[in-house]
C-alpha cells in the first residue's frame, strides 16, 4: 500500500510538473488554448511564428482588456513583450529581484498611462541563477514566449552570453546593470548603467581632482567581474592622478568574511583612504572590522556600496563619512525618485537599491526608443531591432540614474556620475 502511494505521488508530481510547464509556455506563447494552431504557426517558420503569435495575442488581448485600450484592433493596440533575465534565486538574487521589481513598476506605470504607442507592455522576468548557461536557457524560454525586446541580463557574464545569442537572432537587448565592457560589444546591445572601467576611472578622477587622499589602499574581490574590472581601471587611472595606490588587497568569493589581513596591510602602508569597488555586504564587514582595529580611515566606494545602510545587524553609524559614486540615491528629493521610492516601498516593503532604479530606467528607455522608432505590435523582431538600434542614439532619457542620458552606437550611456557622502545616516550630495 505504502509503495503504491509512493509511486502514485511520483507519477502525480511528474505529470503535474510537465503539465504546468507546458501549460505555462503554451498559454504565454499565443494566448490560445488549442495546441494545433500553435503548432501550425511554429511550422510556418520562426518569423511567421513571432508575428502570428503577436497578432493572435493582439486580437485576444484587445478583447480581454477592459476596453481602456482603444478598440481599433490589431494595428493600433496589441502587446509589446519585454523579456527580463536576472538572478531570482541564489546568492545574487537581491540584484535580480530588485531589477525585476523596478522594471515591473515602470511597466505598470506605462500601462496605466496608455502603453507604448498604444500597445500594452507585458514583462516576463526569468531566473538565470547567475549562470551563463541558465541565462541562455532563460533567453530561449523567453523566445518561446514570443519576446520582442530583452531587458537583461542583470549580471555581466550572463549578459555577455545572452548578447551573443540576441545578436544572432537580431533581438534588441538593453541590460540594466551588466557593467562589463563586453556586454555591449554587439551592435544590438545597450546598457543603462556605467561600465566598470568607466566607474573605476571616474572614481580615480574624482578622488584626484578633489584631493580627497594621497595614499589609497584598495580592497577588491578578485573573483568578481565587477570588482576586478573597476579595480583594473582605477589602478590604471591612478597613475596619472595626484594620489598613489599603496596597497591592493584581494579576496575571493570563497573567503569573504575576514578582512583583517587586507586592513592591516592598508594600515601598515599608511593609507588615508580605502577604495572599495565591491558590494555592500562585504563592505559592511570591512567597515566593522576597521572600526574594531581602530583604524581611522576614509572609505570611498562605487555603486555596489549602495544599499549599505540597509544591512541587517550592522551598526549604520559606522558608515558615517563613507563616500560613494552612485547614479542613484534612494534619499534624493527630486519628484521622480520620491515617487519611485514610495511606490516601491508600498509594493515590496523595502527601500529600492540602484538595481531597481536601473531596471526602472531600462523600461523607460525601451519605451522612449520604441516611441522614437515607431514600433508597432506587428513588426518582426528584426525590424524592431534595427529600428530600436537607430532610435537609441537619438533619444534622451531623464531617469532615476541620471538626467539627460544619451547613447551612442557603441551602446554606452553618457551620464554624469554623482558622488554622495553618508551624513547622519543619509546620502548627501558632495
Amino acid at each position: 500500500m505504502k509503495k503504491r502511494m509512493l509511486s502514485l505521488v511520483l507519477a502525480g508530481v511528474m505529470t503535474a510538473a510537465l503539465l504546468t510547464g507546458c501549460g505555462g509556455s503554451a498559454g504565454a506563447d499565443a494566448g490560445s488554448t488549442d495546441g494545433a494552431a500553435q503548432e501550425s504557426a511554429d511550422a510556418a517558420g520562426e518569423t511567421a511564428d513571432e508575428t502570428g503569435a503577436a497578432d493572435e495575442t493582439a486580437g485576444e488581448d484587445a478583447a480581454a482588456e477592459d476596453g481602456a485600450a482603444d478598440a481599433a484592433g490589431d494595428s493600433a493596440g496589441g502587446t509589446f513583450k519585454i523579456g527580463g533575465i536576472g538572478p531570482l534565486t541564489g546568492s545574487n538574487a537581491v540584484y535580480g529581484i530588485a531589477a525585476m521589481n523596478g522594471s515591473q513598476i515602470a511597466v505598470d506605470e506605462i500601462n496605466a498611462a496608455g502603453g507604448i504607442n498604444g500597445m500594452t507592455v507585458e514583462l516576463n522576468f526569468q531566473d538565470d541563477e547567475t549562470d551563463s548557461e541558465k541565462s541562455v536557457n532563460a533567453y530561449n524560454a523567453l523566445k518561446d514566449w514570443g519576446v520582442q525586446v530583452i531587458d537583461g541580463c542583470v549580471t555581466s557574464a550572463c549578459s555577455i552570453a545572452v548578447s551573443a545569442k540576441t545578436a544572432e537572432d537580431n533581438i534588441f537587448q538593453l541590460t540594466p546593470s551588466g557593467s562589463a565592457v563586453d556586454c555591449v560589444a554587439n551592435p544590438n546591445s545597450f546598457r543603462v548603467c556605467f561600465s566598470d572601467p568607466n566607474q573605476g576611472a571616474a572614481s580615480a578622477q574624482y578622488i584626484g581632482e578633489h584631493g580627497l587622499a594621497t595614499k589609497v589602499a584598495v580592497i577588491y574581490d578578485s573573483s568578481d567581474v565587477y570588482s576586478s574590472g573597476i579595480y583594473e581601471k582605477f589602478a590604471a587611472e591612478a597613475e596619472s592622478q595626484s594620489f598613489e595606490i599603496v596597497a591592493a588587497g584581494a579576496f575571493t568569493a570563497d573567503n569573504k568574511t575576514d578582512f583583517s589581513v587586507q586592513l592591516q596591510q592598508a594600515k601598515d602602508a599608511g593609507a588615508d583612504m580605502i577604495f572599495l569597488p565591491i558590494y555592500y555586504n562585504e563592505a559592511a564587514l570591512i567597515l566593522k572590522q576597521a572600526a574594531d582595529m581602530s583604524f581611522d580611515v576614509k572609505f570611498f566606494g562605487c555603486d555596489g556600496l549602495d544599499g549599505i545602510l540597509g544591512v541587517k545587524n550592522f551598526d549604520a553609524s559606522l558608515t558615517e563619512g563613507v563616500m560613494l559614486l552612485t547614479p542613484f540615491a534612494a534619499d534624493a528629493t527630486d519628484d521622480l525618485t520620491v515617487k519611485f521610492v514610495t511606490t516601491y516601498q508600498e509594493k515590496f516593503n523595502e527601500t529600492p537599491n540602484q538595481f531597481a532604479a536601473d531596471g526602472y530606467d531600462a523600461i523607460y528607455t525601451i519605451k522612449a526608443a520604441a516611441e522614437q522608432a515607431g514600433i508597432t505590435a506587428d513588426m518582426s523582431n528584426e525590424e524592431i531591432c534595427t529600428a530600436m538600434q537607430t532610435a537609441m542614439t537619438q533619444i534622451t532619457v531623464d531617469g532615476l540614474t541620471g538626467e539627460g542620458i544619451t547613447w551612442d552606437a557603441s551602446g554606452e550611456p553618457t551620464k554624469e556620475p554623482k558622488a554622495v557622502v553618508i551624513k547622519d545616516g543619509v546620502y548627501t550630495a558632495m
Partner: protein
Amino acid sequence: MKVNKSKVSKTTKNDLITYGMVILTYIVVQLLVSTGHVSSLIQGLLVPFCTYVIVAVALNLTVGILGELSLGHAGFMCVGAFASAVFSLAFKEALPGGFRFFLALLIGAASAALVGFLVGIPVLRLRGDYLAIVTLAFGEIIKNIINALYLGVDSNGVHFSMKDALSLHMEEDGLMLIKGAQGVTGTPNDSDFTVGVILILVTLFIVLNFIHSRTGRAVMSIRDNRIAAESVGINVTKYKLIAFTVSASLAGVAGVLYAHNLSTLNALPKNFGYNMSIMILVFVVLGGIGNIRGSIVAAVLLTLLPEVLRGLSDYRMLIYSIVLIVMMIFNWSPNAVFFRKRLQQKLLPGRKAEKEAV
C-alpha cells in the same frame, strides 16, 4: 565455452541498445527540429544535455567501475573547458572552424587527462576515501587559480600573471585570453547537437569497451576485492590510474563542449564548483552506479527538469528538490526496489527481474 560465448553476445547486445538509444533520440530530435516542433528552449538545451551526459558517463567510470568517489569532476571539466577555450580564441582566425574544434577537443581531453593523472598518482596509491577528499580540494583550487589567472598574447609573445591585468604590460594590439575572474570572452560557438551526439557515442564506445576489456576486468576486480586482485598479480595503482585518467579526460571533453557552446566562460561556483561536482554525482547515483544507460537518462532528465518547471517561477526549485528526493527513494529504497520488481514481474511475466543487477 558455450556459456562464455552467449555471455559476450549479451553484453554486446546491451551495448548496442545503449548506442541505439542515443542514435534514435538523435534522429527523432533532428526530425522534430527540422519540422519546427521543438521550442527554442529545448533547442538551446540540446548541447548542455550532451555535455552533462558525457560527464555523467565519465564519472560513472570512476564511481561505478573503479569504485572510487570523485568529487572533482567539475574541476576536470573546468580544465578542459579553459584549455580548449584559450586555444580556440588564440587560433580563432588562423584555423578553419571544424579542424580547430577537433584540435580543441584533443587539447581539452589531453589537459584534463594530464591533470587527472597528476592528481591520481599520489592519491590512488592509498586505500580509503582519499580520492574524494583530494578531488574535492582540487576542484576548488582549480576554480580559484583560474579566477586569479591573467593570460594574454601580443607581438612580443605570451604574457602571464597571477596578479592583475596591468602587470601583463600588454601591447595595444594584444589579445587578452584569460582575464582573471572575467574569464574567457569571445570563444567561437563550435558546439552543436550533432557534434555533441558524436562525442557521446565516442564516449560510450570508449567507456563500454573499456569495461569489457582486459583492463576493465582488472579494474573491476580491484573494486570488488583488492586483496584478491593483488594476489593474482594485478598492479592496483596502475589500473586505478588508467581508469581515473580516462574518466578525467572524458570530463575534459565535456568541458570543451561546454566552453564552445557559450561565448563567455567563467569559473564560478555555479558551473565549475563543488555544487556542480555533486550535481554530476547525483546524475550517476540516480541513474544507477555502474549503469551507463541510467547515467544518460538521469543527466538528461535532471537537466531538463528545472527548465521545464520555469512556468512555476518561484516554486520550481522546491519542486525540483522534491522530485530529486522522490526519485532517490524510488530508485534506491529497498521497499521501492522490491515493489518495482514485483510490478515488473506482473507486467512482463516472461522476463526475469534480475536484470536490475549491476
